[in-house]
């Protein structure tokens, strides 16, 4: 098997603050393969930004190591780390463009740092601006651009040095849904045409579903689970995973706040949920209570799931389960979930 492009090994990060130490990351082990789009999702304060900053050693981990193409970042000198960083572009929620430089000079900036001759740098920058669809705004200043345009400039800038990896820290969190979609499509295109590995940090499941191949869920400084996005969507193992996928409603349903049993039904999202439920109610002659239902588009594949409360009487509940078995719809009892 090929060496993963990034290996995070037993990584921990502790911040010393006035109120004592803060453990931002603990026991982090992850591997990202070359060419994949890897998502890291978690709630605010979970440690996502700290983790992404540890990947390019902007933040030096307290314990553990990050291997980039098999090379230990911990063992590198500062100068070597700076060189390695040039293989890892980074984009941010707030874009972080240089406000006093126009668009093309922003894209030239990383090339300037490595001493690329000005003319060559400008040509490369123009190429990239074409790719992100902003060649006509080369002379504009960041203040004259929309959020989506700023992020495109930031993406062009991040690509200038031909990096192997792009780290995105909440890159779409400041954008409206439409612009978010366009930026995600651009990232996907970059991944597919240039083979750049992309690490996407976000608190939004929709972002993960839209472009990621695999995802790690981070909760309270630790990795709660890692896996293919479709698998985690269908069968989240952790409480935080269920919360992120089904939202609060799903969590309430799964938490079994109501009396009786609840089950989660998974179905092909191309079918609608209603026929399944109405047929089930008809066949079983028992009412069920729908707690949560959603269909999602995961990497172009439609998937749906629903949480329903079973009838209160044991007989009715049995009939529903028998019915689901008979029509071969996957389901899972969810009462056992710890909140």
């Amino acid at each position, binding site marked *: 098997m090929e060496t993963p492009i990034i290996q995070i090994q037993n990584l921990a990060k502790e911040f010393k603050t006035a109120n004592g130490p803060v453990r931002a990351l603990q026991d982090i082990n992850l591997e990202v393969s070359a060419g994949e789009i890897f998502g890291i999702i978690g709630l605010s304060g979970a440690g996502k930004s700290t983790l992404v*900053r540890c990947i*390019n050693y*902007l933040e030096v981990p307290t314990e553990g190591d990050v291997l980039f193409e098999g090379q230990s970042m911990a063992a590198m000198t500062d100068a070597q780390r*700076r*060189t*390695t*960083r*040039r293989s*890892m*572009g*980074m984009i*941010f929620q*707030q874009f*972080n*463009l*240089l*406000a*006093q*430089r*126009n668009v093309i000079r922003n894209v030239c*900036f*990383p090339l*300037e*740092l*490595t001493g690329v001759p000005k003319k060559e740098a400008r040509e490369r920058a123009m190429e990239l601006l074409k790719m992100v669809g902003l060649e006509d705004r080369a002379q504009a*200043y*960041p*203040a*004259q651009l929309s959020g989506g345009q700023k992020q495109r400039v*930031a993406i062009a*800038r991040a690509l200038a*040095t031909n990096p192997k990896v792009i*780290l995105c820290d909440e890159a779409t969190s400041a954008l409206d849904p439409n612009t978010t979609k366009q930026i995600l499509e651009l990232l996907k295109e970059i991944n597919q045409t240039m083979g750049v590995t992309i690490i996407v940090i976000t608190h939004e499941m929709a972002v993960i579903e839209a472009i990621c191949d695999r995802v790690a869920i981070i909760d309270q400084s630790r990795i709660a689970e890692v896996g293919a996005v479709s698998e985690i969507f269908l069968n989240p193992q952790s409480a935080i995973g269920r919360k992120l996928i089904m939202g609060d409603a799903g969590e309430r349903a799964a938490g079994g706040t109501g009396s009786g049993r609840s089950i989660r039904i998974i179905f092909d999202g191309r079918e609608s949920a209603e026929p399944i439920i109405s047929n089930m109610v008809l066949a079983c002659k028992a009412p069920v209570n729908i707690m949560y239902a959603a269909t999602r588009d995961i990497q172009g594949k439609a998937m749906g799931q629903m949480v329903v409360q079973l009838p209160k009487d044991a007989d009715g509940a049995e009939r529903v389960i028998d019915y689901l078995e008979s029509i071969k719809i996957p389901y899972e009892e969810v009462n056992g979930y710890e909140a």
Partner: protein
Amino acid sequence: MKLDAVTINMLKTGIWESFYMTALSSLFAYIIGLPLGIILVVTDEGGIRPIPWLQKILGVVINLLRSVPFLILLFIALPLSKIVIGTRIGSPAIVIPLTIAAAPYVARVVESSFRELDAGVIEAAQSMGASTWQIIWKVFLPESKPSLLLGAALAVTTILSYSAMAGFTGGGGLGAIAINYGYYRYEPFLMWVSVVLLVVMVQIIQEAGNRLSRKSDKRIR
């Protein structure tokens, strides 16, 4: 007391002396203060090259110098002028105490300009592998240019008003005229004329600073 030719000539000389004392002191104050301001920010605990002990010592020295009243600093530093430029009286002599008083002030003004900079932009530069020097030259200085220009207007006007105290130690300039005529000879008219001229100079410097700052700032448009 009227504005006859002799008086007008004296005022002209006063303007020129105030101007060059201020200009020279500002220049030297920035030559010393700008690097100090950079060091204050860069070596701070959360800075791009933390050296906390150096930052703390520098901070204390700057605060010490800033807390000495200028008039006292003037008398303490004049012997130094004697050593450096051979005289302790007159306008050139005051450039040295002015510089000593202004450099720490400039350092703080520059420091506060740099602190306004968005930490995210510095992080972005670091993520591209920028070295400390590259961040200073290509991020700190150009990105805070509008703020630095505003700070310069503040620093230069302050230096101009300090320079007015040169009159107490045999220096020249508009301040000296105001002191000599108004304070020692009870001729309020000339004192007020000098004061008005000083006010005008302050206004011009401040306005120039504001305009240059606005013009250089690409964030407003």
